[in-house]
């Protein structure tokens, strides 16, 4: 086996498309769980069967979100540039999800504080994740400049 054979074999497991697929699955799961959770939280007096169905759907959504996160961090490498991109996508997804939750809150006339707390925590996590990813990439770029001697 020569290096070219090896690189050809590594192409599929390391492909950007696969990583984006895992990211999409994770975000879809998280978004779905968030929206169903918001609907559930703003709908008082639901029958037990409906509440159970909502709980199941939230669990399924969180399961897919967990799988996406696990696959992204453990099954495929997430390099500095990928992390910054993923950070922006996560922040955009939070903004979109937050807008959906805001619409639901406006239609239903408010949102219970635990739900608001969850939305705020997710926003903080997405922002912190992006800041950390940008700092790490900047540190690596600075090291590359030092090693190459190029500005």
């Amino acid at each position, binding site marked *: 086996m020569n290096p070219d054979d*090896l690189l050809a074999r590594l192409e599929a497991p390391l492909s950007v498309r696969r990583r984006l697929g895992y990211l999409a699955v994770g975000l879809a799961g998280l978004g779905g769980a968030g929206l169903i959770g918001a609907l559930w939280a703003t709908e008082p007096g639901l029958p037990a069967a409906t509440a159970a169905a909502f709980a199941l759907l939230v669990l399924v959504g969180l399961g897919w979100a967990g799988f996406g996160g696990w696959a992204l961090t453990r099954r495929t490498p997430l390099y500095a540039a990928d992390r910054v991109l993923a950070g922006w996508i996560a922040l955009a997804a939070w903004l979109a999800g937050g807008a959906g939750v805001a619409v639901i809150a406006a239609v239903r006339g408010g949102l219970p504080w635990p739900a608001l707390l969850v939305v705020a925590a997710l926003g903080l996590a997405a922002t912190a994740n992006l800041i950390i990813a940008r700092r790490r990439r900047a540190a690596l770029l600075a090291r590359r400049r030092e090693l190459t001697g190029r500005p």
Partner: protein
Amino acid sequence: MSDELLIVRCRLGERAAFAELVRAWHDPVWNYVRRMLGPERAEDVTQEVWLAVFRGLPRLRDPARFAPWLFTIARRAVVDLLRDEYARPEPVDDPDTAGPDGTDLVVDRSALGDLLGALPAREREVLILFYLDDLPLLTCAQICAVPVGTVKSRLNRARRLLRAALDEKGYPR
């Protein structure tokens, strides 16, 4: 280009750097895996090793430790497949008081490759790492997770075993 720069470029996500890293380190890893496991299993294991390397690179903090880190991953894959061989107790001898170690041995690399299969796994791996892959003693010790003295003992024992194997096959002294 230095290994550190290559690693930094890989961690940034530069696809071209991945190819350069593979080209720079493919042969030592391939030599090690193939000589430890034989050609039948070497291709799949080498692929798994590199996959683990690229998955782990974002978490590699010290690029200067790339070589021992890379070979530690390769060794883990090899040990997994040679559990029985590694489970055997290792003979104990003092590197300073051990008998003749066969350092007068002059064997070309292809002949050495043919004879390696006759050696126990621990001795075989230090010979490959030290002589065929030209890694320093300290790096060999880090890879095998043993003190440098133990690596020296294994090298001495390996040379004696190799000398015996050469005599048995009738190679001239």
